[in-house]
């Protein structure tokens, strides 16, 4: 198989920090990645030279690796091309830079108005447009035009106990029209409140404790506890704790987990993946039973099946691999407040930070950035930041309650040196025991 992935991307960013608009930044990148797969070997070359000569040189470099025997010329009829029309979007180029600065200033003011203890505010606004064209020797031809917009606020609050930070972000696979629906002031206030509340935080407990995760607190639990472990590249190398587990009960029956690149506007949404395959709504775990893994073209071919639309790459300079899109737990039927009320003691996590997993062992960590003690069924004192550690299959079996207050959050997923935008979603849920890495 031979494939050409051409990409033309532009991006812009604006940053307000320490009350100043520090600088605006604009970036552009254009190039093609050429992949030749022969048996189990992949040859890959990329170039920013899109002339016929440049492309042929890259193709020769990629083919030289993969081809053990002599080369042969085969003419392939491409098409019909799949081009996705996203309808009306407020494209980044059409937005006046002064309007972006207005968003930054409004957020800065709103954050600082939360209290004198808010000692520093950094506001960032960024957008990108990524146009891709993928053609391969199977005759596939696909084009996509992805527009993404993000806005984030980081606050520092200063008090008697030192400094604390609060972070909140909005990120959508849409244009600037998102600011008609989401208020930048709200994002800023959330970030500031998060930093302020931690000024009176006590050290987090240590040891195994029941945890209630708030709806939309990050959903990164599933991303780390099983998402990465369900990526077929780990499976085919027997480097995942979930290898050979299809049809087995791997989680509480309350868990139905879906990876879904089709959710319009979410951060991990696209019309075609980076191998030209349309995304799907893929059920990974249904009522606790593992139903399938996530697949890209290469790993699907090895197993004689089709891609699930999870072949993604950071840019034309990277090889595609199996990646998540928007990964979420279907909502349950319980009431979030009642789940807390029925928890005699534990920790309530309002917001999660990042995480990391070892897919071979299933051990994973994820950080809290806003958490409280639960005492006698009530949310009480705030806690300082800490990491939680657990083993994927064990933790998923310990989920004993799922509420109906589903929400999604955006994130950036790193794997093998490549970053891609992803979404995570979940309703309020309880885990009967996870190890919390506090100091108390």
């Amino acid at each position, binding site marked *: 198989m031979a494939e050409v992935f051409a990409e033309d991307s532009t991006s812009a960013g604006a940053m307000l920090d320490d009350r100043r608009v520090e600088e605006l930044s604009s970036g*552009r990148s254009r190039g093609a990645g050429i992949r030749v797969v022969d048996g189990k070997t*992949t040859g890959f070359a990329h170039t920013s030279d899109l002339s016929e000569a440049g492309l042929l040189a890259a193709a020769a470099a990629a083919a030289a690796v993969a081809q053990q025997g002599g080369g042969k010329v085969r003419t392939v009829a491409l098409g019909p091309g799949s081009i996705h029309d996203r309808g009306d979007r407020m494209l980044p180029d059409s937005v006046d830079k002064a309007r972006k600065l207005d968003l930054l200033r409004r957020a800065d003011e709103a954050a600082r108005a939360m209290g004198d203890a808010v000692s520093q505010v950094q506001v960032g606004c960024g957008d990108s447009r990524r146009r891709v064209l993928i053609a391969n020797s199977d005759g596939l031809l696909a084009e996509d035009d992805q527009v993404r917009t993000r806005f984030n606020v980081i606050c520092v609050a200063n008090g008697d106990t030192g400094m604390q*930070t609060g972070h909140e972000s909005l990120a959508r696979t849409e244009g600037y029209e998102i600011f008609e629906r989401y208020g930048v002031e709200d994002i800023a206030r959330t970030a500031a409140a998060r930093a302020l509340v931690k000024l009176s935080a006590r050290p987090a407990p240590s040891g195994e404790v029941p945890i209630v995760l708030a709806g939309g607190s990050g959903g990164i639990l599933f991303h780390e506890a099983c998402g990465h472990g369900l990526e077929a590249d780990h499976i085919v190398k027997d*480097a995942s704790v979930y290898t050979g587990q299809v049809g087995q009960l791997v989680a509480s029956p309350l868990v139905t987990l879906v990876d879904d690149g089709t959710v319009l506007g979410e951060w991990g949404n696209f019309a075609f993946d980076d191998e030209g395959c349309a995304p799907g709504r893929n059920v990974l775990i249904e009522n606790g039973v593992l139903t399938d893994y996530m697949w890209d073209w290469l790993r699907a071919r090895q197993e004689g099946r089709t891609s699930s639309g999870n072949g993604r790459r950071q840019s034309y300079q990277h090889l595609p691999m199996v990646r998540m899109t928007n990964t979420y737990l279907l909502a349950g039927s319980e009431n979030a407040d009642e789940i807390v009320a029925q928890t005699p003691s534990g920790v309530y996590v309002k917001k999660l930070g990042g995480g990391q997993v070892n897919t*071979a*062992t299933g051990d994973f960590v994820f950080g809290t950035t806003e958490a409280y003690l639960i005492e006698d069924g009530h949310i009480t004192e705030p806690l*300082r930041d800490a990491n939680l*550690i657990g083993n994927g299959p064990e933790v998923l079996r310990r989920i004993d309650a799922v509420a109906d207050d589903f929400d999604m959050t955006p994130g950036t997923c790193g794997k093998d040196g490549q970053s891609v935008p992803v979404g995570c979603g979940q309703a309020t849920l309880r885990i009967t025991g996870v*190890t919390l890495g506090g100091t108390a």
Partner: protein
Amino acid sequence: MELATSVVDRAREGEGMEVYVTRGTETEVRAYEGAIESLTSADSSGVGIRVVLGNQVGFAYAGSLDPAVIDATLADARDNARYATPDADVVLAAPDGIAGVDLDLWDERVASTPMDEKIALAIDLERATRAADPRVRQVSSADYSDGRVEVALASTAGIRSTARRTSAFVSVDAIAGEGADTQTGTGFSVGRAPGDLNPEEAMVDAVLRSTRLLGAQKARSGRCTVVFDPRVVSTVLSVVAAALSGEAVVKGRSFFAGRIGESVAHGAVTLVDDPTDVRAYSASSHDGEGLACRRNVLISDGMLRMFVFDTVSARRAKTTSTGSAVRGGYAGTPTAGCRAIVLAPGSKGPEEILATVGDGLYVQSVTGIHSGVNPVSGDFSVGAEGLMIRGGHLAEPVREVTVASTLQRMLQAVVEIGSDLQWLPGLAAGQTLAIADMQLSGD
């Protein structure tokens, strides 16, 4: 350099301009089951342009050196400058009279080594790792990679600097299994050329780290002395380095702010940022603004002496640049940061340190550094795996625990600093380090 200066020459009257141009090539080989799984070869180049108009700065970059693209990038940077908040501290770096050291970071062998030899390095590494121990049941990746990068920087303020470097790297991920138990370990080796690499060491490290964790259990929660492996120390020092950035300090985002001259660490702690030491993987003769890199003593005998500054953060702090501007390639703008941190070694080797500690936890790797260590508040909480230390020796393996404290307390609670300094990839070297009174969280 000609390209960088030719763009700078286009600066208009009263316009400041800095042009950063980079060109590079890279090779990456991944081996699997005795064959090439993937081989990447590529050239890349890019340009980053900063324009200063009055006291307003704008930035633009492009992943191409095509003249039409550079024109568009320059126009973007000029337009962006109109929107920044005017600030008298925003100026381009000017030559400060300090000459850069001459560092030889370029090795022709990266280009001259035949591809077949590079491929063999990855394939042989995989084969050797699989054969080393019957408990190694999988090698999920065995990689060879190298790169050559050339950088030129020119500005209207009189900066002209060029640098070039090569690098080569092998790494291997081993998965060990025994019964239902699975553990993993990574080994690597870095150098300026393929000939510098020690794949044997990478293999031995990956096998040892994966197999010695077999049978690991959670440990009981409690306070104990923790001995960190050199690789972990390098990672932790990188976070401490973030708090020593003058940029973080002037913006009130460092727990070190306002503490110059105070005791911030145990008296045995001397922390130096020295990019002029050729042994450092990240060694560099010039910083991200083209000023000479220099040896900066940040903490000596436990006392906080200085922060590192780029030109703008230095002006905001009423001081001068310490030659410490760092930038993330052509797409990044300069900011203040450390480049080659070294904690001054002590006199004891790892075994002696274990003997001194007696009982505690030896941590061979940590997870969740980004989610669990905060350079603003100093809160520290990471996932850890390693071995218990009993009677001065390594004992049973431990997994799925966390160790926690604050960076402030950890710096004061240093018990022993190892003599086994290792030059590692990244921005800090590392050695064995023992820290008292950390909270171990497990069962």
